[in-house]
């Protein structure tokens, strides 16, 4: 499948083998983890389709996302993806009330990704997952592996015990900024462990209700990050909202800017309208692309914010609500396609263009 633009996928979900995670854990955590006690669990909402795509299974019964080799061959190759960002989806552990255990588990998962997945294919990059339940331990994890060339981002659950702008979390942002790594949040763990309920209205009754309302926590975090001055305190920090869709953003920013005119004296560190901080610091990923009956309406929404610099393609492979690159590209106005499908992500994560990467490789081989 060849297209006029490169494709960089900013949200792919690998499933590292728990037995391998166990190998990277020290006692007393290893016995506990291998016994199957792996954190606070989930609320148990039922998705009748299954969260992982049932057709993404190989003839031997393994799932395509269970190894870097099959992911590269059966996903990156098939869709001609130049780079794929691995986002482990086991984020609920970061909402465990047991901060030491959570920190040990995320470190072991990161070790599996860094040692067993990244070396397999030069197209793979990874987010370092951290447990925000203890920000000092999260910062320590960033300083442990943040220098790795394949690590391009910090990832946290979007379910949280308090809004992410609050000072409690700032050690994470300080470490991320030190390594020039964007911080991303990903949904799915709302209401789990010590997190607030999945919506401010309370606990939904079905997965359908839960999934539709996920955007509520994004709105809460985004407003908090700006009003608490995170982007003033950490002027180089970038924030990535993964898998939240896009249609909610423009009207929120209108409301935000309107309130700023009246209420700015409560946040005197903000010297510009909130939408400007958002434009400079915040990026979104495309999936799940909203699908209004009239596709023109989505294009109008995309014209209401700086989508050319704030929006990055994501497939969410192999989850049930994923988008293929061609579907996502078709939903976008042609002028936005090169930026959204790859160029914005290339800049954010400093990914060399493939031709440059090939040249570097040739150079290495000829001198090696």
């Amino acid at each position, binding site marked *: 499948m060849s297209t006029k633009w490169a494709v960089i996928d900013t949200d792919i979900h690998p499933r590292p083998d728990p037995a391998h995670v166990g190998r990277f854990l020290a006692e007393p955590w290893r016995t506990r983890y291998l016994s199957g006690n792996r954190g606070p669990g989930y609320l148990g909402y039922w998705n*009748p*389709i299954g969260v992982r*795509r*049932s*057709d993404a299974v190989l003839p031997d019964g393994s799932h395509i996302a269970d190894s870097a080799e099959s992911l590269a061959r059966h996903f990156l190759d098939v869709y001609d993806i130049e780079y794929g960002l691995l986002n482990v989806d086991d984020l609920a552990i970061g909402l465990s009330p047991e901060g030491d255990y959570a920190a040990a588990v995320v470190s072991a998962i990161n070790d599996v990704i860094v040692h067993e997945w990244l070396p397999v294919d030069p197209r793979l990059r990874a987010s370092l997952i951290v447990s925000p339940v203890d920000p000092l331990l999260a910062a320590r994890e960033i300083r442990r592996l943040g220098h790795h060339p394949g690590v391009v981002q910090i990832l946290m659950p979007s379910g949280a015990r308090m809004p992410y702008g609050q000072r409690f979390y700032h050690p994470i942002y300080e470490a991320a900024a030190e390594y020039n790594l964007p911080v991303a949040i990903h949904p799915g763990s709302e209401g789990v462990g010590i997190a607030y309920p999945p919506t401010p209205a309370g606990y939904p009754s079905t997965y359908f209700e839960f999934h539709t309302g996920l955007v509520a926590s994004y709105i809460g975090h985004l407003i908090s990050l700006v009003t608490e001055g995170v982007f003033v305190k950490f002027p180089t920090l970038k924030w990535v909202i993964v898998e939240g869709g896009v249609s909610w953003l423009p009207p929120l920013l209108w409301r935000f800017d309107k309130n700023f005119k009246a209420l700015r004296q409560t946040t005197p560190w903000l010297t510009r309208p909130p939408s400007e901080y958002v434009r400079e610091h915040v990026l979104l990923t495309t999936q799940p692309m909203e699908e209004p009956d009239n596709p023109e309406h989505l294009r109008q929404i995309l014209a209401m914010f700086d989508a050319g610099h704030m929006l990055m393609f994501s497939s969410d492979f192999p989850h*049930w*609500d*994923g*988008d*293929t690159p061609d*579907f996502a590209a078709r939903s976008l106005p042609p002028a936005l396609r090169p930026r959204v499908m790859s160029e914005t992500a290339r800049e954010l994560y400093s990914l060399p263009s493939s031709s440059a990467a090939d040249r570097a490789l040739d150079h290495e081989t000829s001198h090696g």
Partner: protein
Amino acid sequence: MELDRLSIGVFNVRGTFVAVLNVCPHELAPVCLGPVRGTTLASLPGEYCWGREGEILACPWHGWEFDLLTGKALVDPRKHLRRYQVRVREDTVYITIPQGQ
């Protein structure tokens, strides 16, 4: 069933044979790899009534449910599977594929 470049799913819906193109009208998934099952029928709030067992094909990607007997998506009849004419003679199922496909 694979025919040249066409992939077609053939289903036996309680004795009625149905043949559909293995491409979902939504994002073009291999829809025939999804489960064939029943579904919850329209009911009052708080009531659940399972029915149409074996008549519903659910896409393995985003879960759109299709009525195998009509090819139409349950939530939006404008979205439908591409169906082929099927005849059964003795023990053989014949599928008619229009020219040019």
